[in-house]
């Protein structure tokens, strides 16, 4: 007997915030600030991007020394090999105000760890890494990572030996960055596909290190808050 199809749970309620978002958008379109079609194309594009291409770029660099040289020398050109065209993929076809076309791939070494921030706002290499996480946008992270990088990395669970230099790269209107971390032990003989599975978003920002025993889609433990915040 066929299993009964169970619909996924959904929010069956229209919130004031949902109404506000649509009202702002409709008024902006009516006033000619942008067109409905431009908006739709952006939304469609936004839903296609994520960190998988950057993970593939790192995995390819780990197994192919020539590609690694290319990635470090010309991140935009290397991106093409993992299917990302920084110029023509964008709805505007000339990059965007927030995604300028200069990707730099920062190679970690045993004595050098890179981490990425945008101290001015929240610039992020979205074409190859998707939307930034909320913490990346917060003034807390942006102010503190440049002043106390070691302490902030420790808060992410990344304790680095004292003899490892931490270099914070500040995104700006001209450049975007991703980190090429060291290939972890225990991954000898792995395929590119296997390697890509352990390169998480946080590894690519530089606040975590890839591990052979942790995949991107692993379930993470959830620890309930001791004092959960209630908004209402």
């Amino acid at each position, binding site marked *: 007997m066929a299993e009964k199809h169970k619909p996924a749970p959904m*929010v069956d309620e229209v919130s004031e915030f949902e109404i506000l978002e649509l009202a702002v958008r409709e008024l902006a379109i009516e006033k000619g600030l*942008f067109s409905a079609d431009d908006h739709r194309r952006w939304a469609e594009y936004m839903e296609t991007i994520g960190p998988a291409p950057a993970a593939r770029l790192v995995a390819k660099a780990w197994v192919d020394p020539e590609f690694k040289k290319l990635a470090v020398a010309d991140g935009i050109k290397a991106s093409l090999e993992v299917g990302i065209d920084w110029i023509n993929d964008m709805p505007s076809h000339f990059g965007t105000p927030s995604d300028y076309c200069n990707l730099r791939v920062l190679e970690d070494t045993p004595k050098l760890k890179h981490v990425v921030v945008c101290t001015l706002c929240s610039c992020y290499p979205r074409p190859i890494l998707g939307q930034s996480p909320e913490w990346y946008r917060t003034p807390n992270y942006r102010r503190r990572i440049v002043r106390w990088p070691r302490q902030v990395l420790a808060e992410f669970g990344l304790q680095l030996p004292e003899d490892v*230099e931490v270099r914070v790269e500040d995104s700006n209107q001209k450049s975007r960055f991703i980190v090429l971390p060291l290939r972890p032990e225990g991954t000898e003989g792995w395929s590119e596909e296997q390697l890509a599975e352990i390169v998480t978003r946080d590894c690519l920002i530089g606040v975590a290190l890839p591990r052979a025993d942790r995949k991107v889609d692993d379930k993470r433990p959830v620890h309930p808050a001791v004092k959960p915040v209630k908004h209402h």
Partner: protein
Amino acid sequence: MSDSSDNDTGADPRRTLPDLDTSPIPLLEKVRKEGRVWDDLCEQYGVDNPNPPWKVYLDSTCEVLAEHNCALPLLERRWEEDELSEDIYMDVPFPERQLLALAHSMIRRGLMDEEELARRMEAVDRRLNSA
């Protein structure tokens, strides 16, 4: 050993911007106080999507406002969002506070006014809740 940033010029370009009026806007205050945030809705309905479905549209609105006519430059919007997020929208979670900050910036910049936004919200409310 040096723990360093590559862009520490000491200059903050936002200082050249005119001050944003961060005083509360009654319509947005009402949404802030009465609107149900995504976390609460998820808990009630057993949904685990990290973001509300409207977030992608909000992000798109922010992008297209910075394109073409550049009605609201991206950096200025982000700085205003930072300022408002540390002030009157501090107790609102993300991305709801991003939305409130965007609407606040647009009203204060004269891109739309509070009354017409209130009227449009009423119309949208009727439309979405009519089914």
